[in-house]
């Protein structure tokens, strides 16, 4: 109980910090005069007030966070911030239920990008910008941002960083201090966003659209200001720019930092995750190009290549932009893309899913077992580009895979129980847990999550949180041992 209160104290200061994020929509509301100023000011005040109240009430219980408190802080922090972030959506769009508002906020924060809104083109621009801001803040991680700005997390900072950062190997730091490491990551992230804005404007977008889509790209949120998503623009230039930035965002930001500091692209060549990501994407694009042309979906290879490449990259990186309704493609193509979305994003990127590093460990562990069947006496270290991976990590990856699949199975069964058809249920859960969209069927590229019942919406919300915090951080809270003294 005491540790819960001390965690709430930190969450209080987290909310105070988060209320600064409202400055972006407030500025936009003033500029665009779209009548949302009052709603955003009210939401900012609520966030600030709630944060200060939480902070003051629990000040007495303030203490250095213990390692296990990190999990509680991250899960509780994300849950609460999503609630606070949904306030302006609910105020401006009265037709939205609380369930839908919370889903929308969590979807943006976790960079899933699935939406329950339609008529995006006619929404007040500030509401759209707020959704993109949430993506952007959630992409690199709220807690990591807090670690970068506030020294409040102290020694426990590493634990919290581990609980929020995607990927199995989190012991390596760019700098000795967690605070500096977090700052560097955000600096690279911010810089990349700036470059993306410029590139999108050069490709023909206006400033507002460029800013919005840069937020949605670098965070791999995949939301758009248009119902037709990227298909609205009919522009190969924009699609090309987005492909490049989606791939960059799906790589480890620590790798970007090292490459920038050394001023060398060799760093990327040496990163096995980058190699595998690029190979998987390239091979899949080629395969689907021929498949789609062969099936007669597109008349020529060039058109097939254009649509296949964009949508494959978008799904593989867990971004979720769509340039055409790939739900209408023969089932093999979207299912293959869904598989890629589970495997491809790199450790320490803004993407979701199992992560390429874990995929590599799983494949090598499987072949190790097969090898040992043939040579029972053999010493078989598991190596990834020369470095031996300790068994401790292999076990952790196997446990992750089990819990990840179990979460998918359980949540899918719950969806089926609520009356959804199989394809829609399984794809909705998979895309939510991978923090991408769209799925197939009723949640396909041509539709939204609006048609889901209240229960189904909450199941998807839970899947997004579990996926964003990589299963362990959430599930550990449900073990009795966590709460035992």
């Amino acid at each position: 109980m005491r540790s819960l209160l001390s965690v709430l104290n930190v969450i209080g200061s987290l909310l105070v910090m988060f209320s600064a994020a409202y400055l972006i929509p407030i500025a936009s509301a003033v500029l665009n005069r779209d009548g949302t100023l009052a709603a955003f000011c009210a939401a900012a005040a609520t966030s600030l007030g709630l944060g200060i109240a939480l902070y003051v009430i629990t000040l007495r219980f303030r203490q250095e966070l213990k390692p296990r408190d990190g999990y509680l802080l991250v899960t509780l922090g994300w849950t609460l911030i999503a609630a606070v972030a949904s306030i302006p959506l609910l105020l401006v769009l009265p037709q939205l239920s609380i369930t839908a508002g919370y889903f929308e906020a969590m979807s943006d924060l976790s960079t899933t990008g699935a939406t329950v809104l339609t008529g995006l083109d006619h929404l007040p621009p500030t509401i759209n910008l707020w959704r993109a801001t949430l993506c952007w803040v959630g992409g690199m991680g709220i807690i990591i941002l807090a670690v970068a700005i506030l020294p409040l997390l102290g020694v426990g900072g590493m634990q919290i960083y581990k609980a929020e950062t995607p990927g199995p190997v989190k012991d390596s730091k760019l700098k000795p201090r967690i605070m500096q490491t977090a700052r560097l990551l955000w600096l690279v992230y911010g810089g990349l966003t700036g470059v993306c804005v410029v590139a999108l404007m050069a490709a023909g977008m206006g400033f507002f659209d460029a800013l919005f889509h840069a937020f949605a790209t670098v965070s791999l949120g995949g939301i758009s200001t248009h119902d037709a998503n990227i298909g609205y623009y009919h522009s190969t230039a924009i699609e090309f720019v987005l492909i490049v930035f989606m791939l960059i965002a799906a790589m480890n930001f620590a790798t970007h930092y090292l490459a920038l500091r050394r001023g060398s692209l060799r760093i990327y060549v040496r990163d096995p995750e980058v190699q595998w990501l690029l190979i998987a994407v390239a091979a899949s694009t080629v395969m689907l190009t021929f498949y789609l042309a062969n099936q007669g979906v597109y008349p020529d290879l060039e058109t097939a290549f254009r649509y296949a490449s964009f949508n494959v990259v978008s799904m593989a990186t867990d971004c979720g932009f769509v340039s055409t309704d790939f739900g209408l493609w023969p089932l093999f193509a979207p299912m293959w893309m869904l598989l890629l979305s589970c495997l491809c994003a790199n450790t320490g990127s803004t993407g979701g899913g199992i992560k390429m590093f874990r995929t590599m460990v799983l494949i090598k562990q499987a072949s190790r077992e097969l090898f040992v069947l043939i040579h029972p006496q053999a010493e078989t270290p598991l190596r990834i580009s020369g470095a031996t991976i300790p068994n401790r990590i292999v076990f952790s990856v196997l446990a992750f895979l089990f819990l990840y699949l179990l979460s998918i199975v359980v949540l899918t069964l719950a969806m089926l129980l609520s009356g959804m058809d199989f394809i829609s249920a399984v794809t909705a859960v998979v895309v939510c847990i991978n923090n991408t969209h769209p799925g197939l069927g009723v949640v396909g590229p041509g539709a939204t999550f609006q048609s889901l019942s209240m229960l189904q919406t909450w199941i998807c919300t839970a899947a997004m949180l579990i996926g964003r915090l990589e299963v362990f951080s959430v599930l550990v809270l449900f073990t009795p041992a966590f709460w035992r003294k």
Partner: protein
Amino acid sequence: MKIVILGAGQVGRTAAYHLSREEANEVTVVDTNEDLLRDLQDRLDIRTVAGNASYPSVLEAAGASDTDVLIALTSSDEVNMMACEVAYTLYRTPTKIARIRSAEYTSHPSLFSDEALSVDVWISPEQLVTEYVERLIQYPGALQVLDFAGERVRLVGLRALEGGLLVGKTISTLREHLPKSESRIVAIYRKGRNIHPEGSTVVENGDEVFFLAARDDIRRVMSEMRKGDAPVKRVVIAGGGNIGFRLARALEKHNQVKLIERDPKRARRISELLENTIVLNGDAADEDLLVEENIDSADVFAGLTNSEEANILSAMLAKRLGANKVMALINKPSYAELMESGSIDVAISPQTITIGSLLAHVRRGDVVRVHSLRRGAAEAIEAIVHGDERNSRVVGRRVEEIRLPDGATLGAVVRGEQVIMAHHDTVIQTDDHVILFLADRRHVEQVERLFTTPP
């Protein structure tokens, strides 16, 4: 400050803990044991690198190319020296500190001169601990005796006892009792809590008092706090390792020393090297042996073996059998805390003793000496004042005008050979050595800022 620590042993871990607690430091620890490093990184905000400490690739990965201080604390003297050499040759690291244990090296100072090995400062924890214990024996009744300004001034910590002239009286009466001696009480801990000493503060029975005094005045001031402890004559040392042996050699001229060593070969070896010490081959926890050797008339019993549990138990046994004052070498801070509350008189913590000599090199400002006190909670600092009245925050100012943080006391000023106890109207001059006591080491940055002058 960017700091690389090589070796995650007892001293390395303590150094990492203390240094990383200070916000301005970026600490990287190198060791060959990955499990040890992972555990360390989970608890401290540091970076860790696994590998052989003297290899260039490992030093490179630890960020040696822009490191300010390299502290080599691995268990091997040779690796430590090599690492300093590599760091200097490849990365021009400005400050390189190495732990050198073997007297074979340390007895040749020219090895560490500018044109020879690239070790700027060498420390030998064993030697530091030996000197520390030696001073404690020199001043019976003291819990801690620390040197400043080339031994001209000492900081003494002791427990005030009924019978001392000052006990039950205010601090200001100290001057009336001892008009000729200069001394200054810098801190009082009552039941573990710090009390800022003022002239009107009453010293109570059982208080832990820290005072500064010139070396020759210490005995007189100590007798104010507790009934005259008799000078030490008979010393019994348990453990003939590095520390025990060195201590015996230092004490044997003026004291009657008995040394108990368990290993027959080692006992034979040190008996050959020591002149007047009686070396006994046996177990320090053997009651019969202790009684036979008249432990009841021993003034001091010091448990200095490698095993802290054995030190604690043999010291407790010696106390029960009648030894006057017992000490034990204890590594674990938690044990030290447990023991000092009653069962034994002095817990000697090698890490706390060693860490001070490391801290002096990572402080900003011209800090020449740092002693860590009360398991790292408090600190005593000696700094040299530079600059003039225009660019310094202290030069030309009276002590009362200097804005010291809470719980900090400016205790003494050493000007050339002269030792001045600081009063509210003492004026600080340039090149003074100033000795400060900080009850809370978290304020250390404020003190550093006072003593740095803008270039």
